[in-house]
């Protein structure tokens, strides 16, 4: 038995050695290098920013959670972009710091929320709509922003290497962020119930069914409201 364990642990050890060798050898290439990191960030940012463009123009195709896109939608509907801009950019700021310190950039906070919602909200707040209205421009804007973010991260990495391993409370924020996402489901049901009685019923049923299926309640609430909205339309001003 002990022999087995020993053999096994040796195997694991040699396995770990071989993988670390492998990654060290491969680090020089494009796929593992520091210099290529901004390129990857740039590509994904171009896609995500253009996704926000699609949302702005066609109302489909944004990459974020419903709760976060709802912040942007509230701005587009005339409620002011302050919250979306502040929320998105502060997340971007926090994630850039965290990403360079821990070695994993969190796409959700930095690119999807920061570049995909925060920066567009900033642009719309100052009435600079062109990058969001035009697809090629959206791609270019996104890729430049991504390149900047990527270089900042690699820069901070060089600057603070080994000096810190704090996550700056990212876990606290992540917890609060996830919790606020949970609030959206009940809030949508409440809002549907104030819109009209049939839509309210639809939303309640949808939310209950989705909860039962272990799917997000917010999605069920919206879909339920839409289904009943087919038969009992309400005036949209």
């Amino acid at each position, binding site marked *: 038995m002990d022999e087995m364990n020993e053999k096994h642990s040796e195997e694991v050890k040699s396995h770990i050695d071989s993988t670390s060798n492998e990654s060290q050898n491969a680090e020089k290439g494009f796929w593992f290098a520091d210099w290529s990191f901004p390129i990857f960030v740039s590509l994904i940012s171009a896609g995500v920013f253009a996704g926000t463009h699609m949302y702005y123009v066609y109302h489909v*195709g944004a990459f*974020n959670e419903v709760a976060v896109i709802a912040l942007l939608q509230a701005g587009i509907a005339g409620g002011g972009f302050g919250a979306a801009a502040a929320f998105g950019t502060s997340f971007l700021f926090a994630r850039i710091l965290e990403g360079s310190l821990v070695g994993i*950039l969190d*796409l959700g906070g930095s690119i999807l929320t920061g570049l995909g919602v925060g920066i567009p909200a900033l642009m719309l707040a100052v009435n600079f709509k062109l990058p969001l209205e035009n697809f090629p421009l959206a791609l270019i804007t996104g890729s430049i922003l991504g390149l900047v973010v990527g270089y900042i991260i690699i820069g901070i990495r060089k600057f603070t290497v080994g000096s810190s391993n704090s996550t700056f409370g990212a876990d606290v924020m992540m917890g609060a962020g996830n919790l606020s996402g949970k609030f959206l489901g009940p809030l949508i049901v409440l809002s549907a119930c104030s819109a009209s009685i049939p839509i309210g019923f639809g939303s309640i049923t949808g939310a209950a069914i989705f909860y039962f299926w272990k799917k997000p309640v917010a999605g069920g609430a919206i879909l339920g409201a839409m289904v009943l909205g087919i038969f009992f339309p309400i005036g949209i001003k």
Partner: protein
Amino acid sequence: MTLTLILIESIIIGGLVGFAAGAGAARMFHAPTVQGMGSFRTLGELNACAGDSASHFSFGLGFFFNAWASAVGAGTFSQDVSHRIIPNWAAAVWCRKGKPIETTLHNPKKMAISGMVVGIIVVSFLNLTSAAIPQSLQAIAIKVLVPAANLLINPVMPVLFWLAALDAGKRTGVYGTIFGGLAHLIMGNAVPGVVLGILIGKGVDENGWGRLTTTLFVSVIILFVLSGFFRGFDLTLLQQFKLGVPGWLQGLHQMMGAGGK
């Protein structure tokens, strides 16, 4: 016509996001020596499926239906597309029994290629199906969504973040309260202030006042001063304390075109 445009744009966007998300996910396995891109939960979930093609696929599929519901209802994919569906399905393409995961899941090149293909298919499918929903139905979704979002922005999120800051320790609580309150006064929403308060409080808790935390603190102060200035907060403040606004400050605001009522 619109549908063709949506398809073309979706293919480009899906390809870009899929390529980068796939490569970033594979790079995560080599962190911290290599800078990865994804998230800790993605890393954990990919590890949990451990290179088994069927587990990767079914894990992604579960979230695919979530993403579909949210795309049809609200026009947005949920973060699951980039965090879960693309990485897991990209991995499912390469993982086979007997193949070591170092050559599949941990290989950025392979993951980038399969990620690109998965991204194109998923994004095009989600966008085309949600674009096919009639306008009037989307209008209902928005009419229901926007009031809920407004409630979420204020007061639900500020309160939740604030409480999280208070629970995270004395220093975080104090900084969260001060910056949160100031942010509500200056920017009209407490969330960014509370977030920055958590950032500074936790940073100081864990590292003390080093070069990094001091830089952070100073840049937060600059951020507050600048946004206060450009929103004309200083003018309103002086007026409401009945102190009178000096002419040069008024002039400076007019010169910079920076608000103030």
